[in-house]
């Protein structure tokens, strides 16, 4: 399929065009140097050239706080809050974040499929954009290039003076309908170069984790970790949650709400009576990383980490998942050399 050319100075028009049919969600600047996905109000505010957003688009389908039911204490009854599909265009999504959504699709479809997630996921259309890796991105090491179009309906490749626009699905072609663009003449650019790498050949990555369980890496890294939970909470593929009942001040109504949780927290494995399974931070750190590279990966064959770099960048203690994995790789190589 031929790509079309979207000049930089027409991006605002393009966003306006997308807004005609559906609400559009796209990255916006926040704070001193951060970005967040938000519904577009002023097309001018959309930022397509950004390193990564604070939360991934996971937040729309699995919200940080999600009411599971509303209850009435007087009548001891409940109602289910309405579940609305996110019938919207998600503009400016990076490849690794859509890969993360696809992993969540798997989690919420297999075993006991969950209506709450699946219902919200309906109707979403994805317009991707390629990105320039910064010092934390390493999605290339888990097989996700900067221009990986898997799952997208439309993809914008960064080229000189603008974007080469590729329609990838029927829904994507429909989106572009009515917005005239000249044909893009050049070849589509290849994936950009990553500074950050996991040093293991593609396809061998998961083997490393058959060996790393008893590594000293875990206690080494845990010594610097505060156990704050940040690394899980900003991860686009983390999906654990807590459930709590909240009662309003009239003590007649309330909601049962689930919120994102983190396996790095001490209380995550605490049961009544105070026993904490995985009391040790080293065990928790291992569990987190094994959730990304082994447990589900053994089932599906792919790493559950998509290489977005969020956990490393946001860790105030400077703990780097790439560093952890590379240390394991190193130990693995050594043990194999010894054999």
């Amino acid at each position, binding site marked *: 399929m031929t790509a079309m050319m979207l000049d930089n100075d027409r991006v605002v028009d393009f966003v306006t065009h997308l807004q005609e049919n559906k609400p559009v969600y796209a990255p916006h600047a926040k704070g001193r140097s951060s970005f967040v996905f938000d519904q577009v109000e002023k097309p001018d505010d959309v930022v397509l050239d950004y390193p990564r957003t604070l939360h991934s688009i996971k937040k729309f389908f699995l919200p940080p706080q999600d009411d599971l039911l509303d209850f009435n*204490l007087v009548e001891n009854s409940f109602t289910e809050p309405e579940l609305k599909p996110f019938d919207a265009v998600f503009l400016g999504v990076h490849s690794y974040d859509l890969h993360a959504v696809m992993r969540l699709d798997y989690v919420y479809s297999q075993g006991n499929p969950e209506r709450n997630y699946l219902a919200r996921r309906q109707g979403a259309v994805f317009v991707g954009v390629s990105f320039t890796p910064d010092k934390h991105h390493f999605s290339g090491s888990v097989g996700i290039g900067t221009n990986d179009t898997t799952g997208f309906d439309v993809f914008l490749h960064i080229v000189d003076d603008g974007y080469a626009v590729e329609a990838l699905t029927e829904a994507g072609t429909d989106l572009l309908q009515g917005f005239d663009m000249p044909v893009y003449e050049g070849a589509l650019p290849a994936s950009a170069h990553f500074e950050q790498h996991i040093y293991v050949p593609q396809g061998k990555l998961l083997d490393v984790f058959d060996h790393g369980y008893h590594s000293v890496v875990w206690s080494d890294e845990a010594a610097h970790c*505060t*156990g704050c939970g*940040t690394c899980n909470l900003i991860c686009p593929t983390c999906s654990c949650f807590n459930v709590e009942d909240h009662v309003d001040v009239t003590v007649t109504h309330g909601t049962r709400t689930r919120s*994102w949780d983190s396996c790095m*927290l001490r209380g995550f494995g605490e049961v009544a009576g105070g026993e904490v399974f995985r009391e040790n*931070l080293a065990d928790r750190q291992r569990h987190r990383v094994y959730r990304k590279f082994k447990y589900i990966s053994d089932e599906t064959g792919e790493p559950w980490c998509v290489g977005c770099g969020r956990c490393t960048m946001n860790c105030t203690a400077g703990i780097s998942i790439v560093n952890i994995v590379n240390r394991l790789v190193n130990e693995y190589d050594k043990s194999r050399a010894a054999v």
Partner: protein
Amino acid sequence: MALKPRIGIFDFTGCEGCELNHLNFEDQLLDILEHVEIVEWREAMDGRADELDIAFVEGSLSTPDCIERIHEIRRKSKVLVAVGACAVLGGINAMKNIRPIEEVREEVYGKDKYLFPTLPALPLSAVVEVDHSIRGCPMTQLEFLKVFTSLVMGKQPVQEDYAVCVECKLKENECVVEKGMICLGPVTRAGCDAHCPTFGQMCIGCRGLVTDPRLEAMEEILVAQGLSMDEARKKLQMFNANQLEGVTS
């Protein structure tokens, strides 16, 4: 618990911001009054009560008179709730505990220092049994409502025991460390909905430390940000002097 619990509000040494925060429930005050009868509250009303279902007590204990009064309050109350950093931790007043008390008195009152007896600033739990805590400086209104509704329903209020970072991340805040600021969020107990970082300010640790706080890791972070070890300790001590000294958990 009686259908309409009789409650009292008491104060010890502190800034009374927590008490003021009781009056700041403008939108909920009338609802709250539906569920309880306020029978004693020096700051807002005349009168005293002999027996109470719930005592909300703010302030730290720092004179011999305080110790006597808190015993009396404990005796007459079925449930005692410590309200705010001063009552729960000793609060900012406990910073004076770090330096020898004589030196501090001398500095403020000079030769007249013996006119005014004072003790180290203690949390209520150092002297009497405390049933529940509402943390924060000032007390977190969110948490007050949670404890209040729990007590009215007759259930144990749950205390958050994870870092402020959790709530901060749930709100998709830009981490203030990103702006070069120093933040005690990673070891401070949540429950405030990350109020300070949400307004671009650092977490100062007013809600106390989480269970099993990773202090060495936290100090390492602060030192990496350019503080000396001594300054890092001081930061942590602002609200947690007693907890760090083992006076309270």
